[in-house]
C-alpha cells in the first residue's frame, strides 16, 4: 500500500495549544483530557444505572418490602438501567474514553486528526446524558418500555413515561448518535492517516484494532437506530404509522393504520447486534494487550486475532434477527440467522484459545490488572457458551424471554467487558495519572466483583431453565415455579448488593491514588507498546515532545530470545537492542 505517513509532515502541523485553565480542562481539544471527560461522565452515569439495577434486585429478592418500587418504577428502572449501561456507559467509556486516550498514543500521533470535532463529540455526549437524565424529572417520568423500546407500547397509556419520557429518550439517543459520529469519524481517520513512521496496520496493538473495527461497526449500525428513533418520534408526535398498525388503546381505537411493529425490531437489532460487538471488540483488544504485557509473552496468533476481529465485525451485521426468533417474523428466517450466529462462534472461540495460549509458557505476573484479565477469560467463556444455546434457534423457544437470556447477556456483555474495563483502568492508571493505584484494594475489588458477579449470574441461568420469565415485577403464583426460586432470588439480590457496594472500593482507590499513590515509573510494567514510551508521564499536550517516534516492530516483543531485556519497545531499532552475551545465549 502506498501509504505516506502524515507523520512525515509533523513539522508543518500546528497543535491547538490551550491558553487558559478553561481551554485546558473544560473546552479542551486534547484527546487525553477529552478521554477523561468521556470516561468520567460514563462512570458517573454508569453508577446511576448500577443503583437502578439494585432497586430492581431489591424488589425481586424481597418483594413487598420496599415501598418506593412499584411496577411503574420497576419498569422504568429496567429500561433506564439497560439503555444507560449499553449505550451511555459501555459504548461511551470504551470508545469515547479508551478510544480517545489510546489511539493517538498507541499509533504515535500528537492528537486526533480533528481535535475540535473531538471536543464537540464530548459535549454532545454530555448533552445527550443530560437530556436522558432530565426524563427522571418530567411528568410521568422516564420511559418504562424496556431498553428495546418496542412499539406500539412505547407511546401507549399502559406504559410508564409514554408521553414525555419516551420523547426525551429518543431525542437523547439522536444527540448521542451525533456525538458518536463525530468521535467515530475522528477515530477511523486518525487510525488510517495519523500513524507514525513504521506503524503499519499489522503492527498496531490489538487495542487499536478492536477500537477501529468497533468504530466502523458503530458508524454503520447507529444510523439504523437514528432512523428508527426519528420514525418513532414521528409516530408519537405527528401521528404517522411507521410502526403502528390499527390498534386499540384502553378500549378505544387509535388513529393508526398499516404500520409494522416488527419493522422497528429489525431496525433496532440491525443496530443492536453490532452494538454488542461495538462493546466487545474494544474490550477484546484491551484485554489482549493486558494479557500479553503481564504474561511477558507475545500475544499468540496476532494475525489470527486481527482477522478474527474483522470477521466478527463483518458477521455481526448478518446475525441480528437471532434476537427475533420468537418475534412473529417469518419463522423461515430462523434457518439463516441460526447458521450465521453459530458461525460467529468460530472466530470468537479462536480468540479465547489464543488468549489462553498467550498464557501458556508465559511468565505470568499476577497483579490486579492480570487478575481482572484472567477473570474476564473465565466469564467470557461462560457467557459465550450460553450464547450457543440462544443462537440455536430451537433452543430459543423455551429460553427466550426468561432469566436465561438476562444471565447470558449480563455475563457476556456486562460482566466481561466491565472486568476488562477494570483491568484496563488499573493497567494504564500509572501512565494516565503518573501514580500507582493501591494493589491490595484493587485485588479486594477484583475478588468481590469476580466472585460476586458469578454468584449472581450462574444461578440466574437456572431460573431461566426453569422458565421464570424476565421483566416481571413479581412472579406471583404459578404452577411450575417452586418456592425455592424465591430463596435463589434473595441470594442473588444479596450478592448484587455486595458487588454494588464493592465498586466504592474502586472509586476510592482511584480517587485516593490520584493524590497519594506512589510515583509511577514511565513504564512500570515493562510494556513494549508505544503509549508507554512517551517522554513525559503523564503525557503532555502533543504527546511526543520534539520528535515523533519511529516504529520498528510490532507491539508484542516480549521475552525475545537473545535480548537482554524481557521486552523491546516498538520504537527501538534493531541495532539498539541489547543482546545477551554469546555465552549466556548458548546456555
Amino acid at each position, binding site marked *: 500500500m502506498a501509504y505516506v505517513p502524515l507523520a512525515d509532515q509533523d513539522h508543518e502541523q500546528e497543535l491547538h495549544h490551550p491558553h487558559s485553565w478553561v481551554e485546558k480542562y473544560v473546552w479542551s481539544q486534547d484527546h487525553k483530557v477529552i478521554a477523561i471527560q468521556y470516561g468520567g461522565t460514563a462512570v458517573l452515569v454508569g453508577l446511576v444505572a448500577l443503583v437502578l439495577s439494585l432497586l430492581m434486585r431489591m424488589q425481586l429478592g424481597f418483594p*413487598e418490602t420496599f415501598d418506593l418500587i*412499584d*411496577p*411503574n418504577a420497576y*419498569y422504568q428502572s429496567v429500561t433506564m438501567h439497560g439503555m444507560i449501561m449499553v449505550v451511555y456507559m459501555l459504548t461511551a467509556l470504551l470508545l469515547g474514553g479508551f478510544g480517545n486516550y489510546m489511539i493517538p498514543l498507541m499509533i504515535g500521533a500528537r492528537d486526533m486528526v480533528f481535535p475540535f470535532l473531538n471536543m464537540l463529540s464530548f459535549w454532545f455526549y454530555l448533552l445527550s446524558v443530560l437530556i436522558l437524565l432530565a426524563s427522571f424529572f418530567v411528568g410521568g417520568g422516564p420511559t418504562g418500555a*424496556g431498553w428495546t423500546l418496542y412499539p*406500539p*407500547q412505547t407511546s401507549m397509556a*399502559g*406504559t*410508564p413515561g409514554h408521553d414525555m419520557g419516551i420523547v426525551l429518550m429518543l431525542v437523547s439517543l439522536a444527540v448521542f448518535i451525533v456525538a458518536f459520529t463525530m468521535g467515530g469519524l475522528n477515530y477511523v481517520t486518525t487510525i488510517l492517516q495519523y500513524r507514525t513512521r513504521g506503524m503499519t496496520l499489522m503492527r498496531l496493538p490489538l487495542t487499536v484494532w478492536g477500537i477501529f473495527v468497533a468504530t466502523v461497526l458503530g458508524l454503520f449500525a447507529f444510523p439504523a437506530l437514528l432512523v428508527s428513533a426519528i420514525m418513532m418520534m414521528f409516530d408519537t408526535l405527528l401521528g404517522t404509522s411507521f410502526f403502528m398498525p*390499527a*390498534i*386499540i*388503546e*384502553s*378500549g378505544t381505537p387509535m388513529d393508526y393504520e398499516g404500520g409494522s*411493529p416488527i419493522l422497528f425490531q429489525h431496525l433496532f437489532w440491525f443496530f443492536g447486534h453490532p452494538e454488542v460487538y461495538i462493546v466487545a471488540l474494544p474490550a477484546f483488544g484491551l484485554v489482549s494487550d493486558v494479557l500479553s504485557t503481564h*504474561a511477558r*509473552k507475545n500475544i*499468540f*496468533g496476532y494475525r489470527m486475532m486481527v482477522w478474527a476481529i474483522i470477521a466478527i465485525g463483518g458477521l455481526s451485521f448478518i446475525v441480528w434477527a437471532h434476537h427475533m426468533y420468537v*418475534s*412473529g417474523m417469518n419463522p423461515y428466517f*430462523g*434457518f439463516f440467522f441460526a447458521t450465521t450466529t*453459530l458461525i460467529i462462534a*468460530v472466530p470468537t472461540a479462536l480468540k479465547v*484459545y489464543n488468549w*489462553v*495460549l498467550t*498464557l501458556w*509458557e*508465559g*511468565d*505470568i505476573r499476577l497483579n490486579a490488572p492480570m487478575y481482572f484479565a484472567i477473570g474476564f*477469560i*473465565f466469564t467470557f*467463556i461462560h457467557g459465550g457458551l*450460553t450464547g*450457543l444455546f440462544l443462537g*440455536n*434457534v*430451537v*433452543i430459543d*423457544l*423455551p429460553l427466550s*424471554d426468561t432469566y436465561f437470556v438476562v444471565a447470558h447477556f449480563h455475563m457476556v456483555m456486562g460482566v466481561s467487558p466491565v472486568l476488562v474495563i477494570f483491568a484496563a483502568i488499573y493497567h494504564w492508571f500509572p501512565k494516565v495519572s503518573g501514580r500507582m493505584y493501591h494493589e491490595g484494594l484493587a485485588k479486594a475489588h477484583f475478588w468481590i466483583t469476580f466472585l460476586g458477579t458469578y454468584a449472581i449470574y450462574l444461578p440466574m441461568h*437456572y431460573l431461566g*431453565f426453569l422458565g421464570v420469565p*424476565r*421483566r*416481571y415485577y*413479581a*412472579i*406471583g403464583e*404459578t404452577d411450575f415455579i417452586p418456592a425455592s426460586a424465591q430463596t435463589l432470588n434473595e441470594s442473588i439480590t444479596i450478592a448484587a448488593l455486595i458487588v454494588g457496594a464493592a465498586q466504592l472500593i474502586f472509586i476510592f482507590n482511584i480517587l485516593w491514588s490520584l493524590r497519594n499513590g506512589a510515583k509511577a515509573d514511565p513504564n512500570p510494567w515493562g510494556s513494549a507498546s508505544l503509549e508507554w514510551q512517551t517522554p513525559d508521564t503523564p503525557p503532555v499536550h502533543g504527546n511526543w515532545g520534539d520528535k515523533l517516534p519511529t516504529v520498528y516492530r510490532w507491539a508484542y516483543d516480549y*521475552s*525475545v530470545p537473545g535480548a537482554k531485556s*524481557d521486552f523491546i519497545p516498538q520504537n527501538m531499532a534493531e541495532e539498539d537492542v541489547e543482546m545477551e552475551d554469546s555465552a549466556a545465549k548458548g546456555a
Partner: protein
Amino acid sequence: MILAVVIFALVIGSVIFHFASPWWFTDIVSQWDSVDGVISITFWVTGAVFVLCNLFLAYCVYKFRQKPGHKAVYEPENHKLESWLSAITTVGVIAMLAPGLFVWADFVTPPEEATEFEVMGQQWQWNFRYPGADGKLGTADTEFISELNPFGINPEDPNGQDDIVVNAPEMHLPIGKPVKALLRSNDVLHNYTVPQFRVKMDMVPGLVSYLWFQPEVTGRYDILCEELCGIGHFIMRGAVVIDTQEDYDAWIASQPTFAETQAMAAPDLAAGQAQYAICASCHGAGGEGNQALNAPKLSGLQDWYIERQLNHFKTGVRGQTEGDLYGASMVGMANMLVDDAAVRNMSAYIASLPDIPAQPTIQGDVANGADIYDRNCAACHLDNGNGTWYTDAPKLAGMNDWYFVTQIKNFRSGIRGLHQADPYGEQMVSMATAMAAKNTDDTKEMEDVAAYLNTIR
C-alpha cells in the same frame, strides 16, 4: 496461585451446582421432546468446552506464574495448532446446529391434520376462539372490535358465526392431537408461553403468528405473557387445561358461539326492577348505597361488572373467605337470583339507574393519591376513573370512597381475589400489593387515592 485454585474451584463448583440444582426444566407435557434433545446435545458440548478451557486456563495460571529465573517462551504463532483448533470448533458447532435446524424445520411446518385455535392477547387479558362445526375461523379485524365483539369478528363472515368465543383467561385442549395456535394482539406485543409446552411466540398487532404442539399430559398449566406489554405485564396470566377428548367435548359444548353472543335477548329491565326491591333495603332505591349498613353505591357501575360480581357471590368465588363479613351477607342475597337471565336483568337494571356521585367521607393527600393512581391504577381504570370493559376494570370515580378503601384492604389481605375463578381479582391482588409494602398496616395511601378519586368524579 490463589487465582488458579479459585478458577479450578469455580469449574468444579459450577458442575456440582448444575447436577445438584433443583431448578431445571419443568416436566414436558407436549410432544416437543426433540427440543429438549437439542438442549441436551448443546449442554454436553458446551459443558465440555467450559470445563476443558477453564481447567486449562487454571493450569496455565498455576504452572506459568512468575518465578525468579523463569522466562517466557517466544512463540508468535503456530499455524498447525490454530488450524486444528478451528477445525475442532467447527465440528462442535455443526454438531449443535444441525440437529437444531432439523427440529426447527419441524416447528415451522405444522402437520396438515393440526386443528386451529386462536389466542387473542390484549392489555392484560387472554381470550380464545375455536372454529365451530365448519372447522374454519371467521375473519376478524380491529375495526369490528367492541364490547359485544371483543374479538373483532367480521359480522358478515358466515365462517365466523359458529366460532366458539371464550371471553375468559382459561382455554381447554384435547390430549393427543396436534394443534396450531393462531396468535393475535389487539394492542401491544404479547407472547403466548406455556413453559411445559417448550414453545412460545410473540403476538403482534396487525399480523397473525403461529406455533404448534401436541398436548400429551392432562392437567392445568399456566399461560404467561413473555413479551413486555406495559405495567400489567406480570399479571397477564391465563391457564390451559389439557382434557381427555370427552371432557374437552363437554367443555367446548358449554361455550357460546359468536352468533349466540350477538343474538342474546335484551335484558328485561322491569323484571330486574321487581327483583331489585329487596336490594333497595340496603343499597337504596336509587342504588346510592348506605354506609351505615356497609352497602356500597351500585349506580354507575357497568352491567358486566355487576353481573360478574353477582355470579361470583352465587358460585362461592366471592364472599366465602373468612373475614369477609359483608361479602358473606351478599352470598344469600345473590342466590335469590335463580338463573343467568335473572342476573342479567338485575345487572342491566342497576346499570340503568341515574349515577349521582357519592358524598366524600375520606380526607387525604390528594396530590399523593393522584401520583399513586396515575402510576398504578390509571392504565386499567383510566385517567377519568370510569373504568372500561377492555381491561375489565370497573368504575371507581364517584363511587363510595369508604368502600374503595375496604376493598383494597380485602385484596391486600387475601380476603378477595385469590379464588382461582377470579382472575381479574387476582390481578387486583397483585396491584394492591404492589402499591405499598404489605407489612404496613396503615391505610394512608389508600385514603390518599380515595381522596383523589373524590376530586375526579
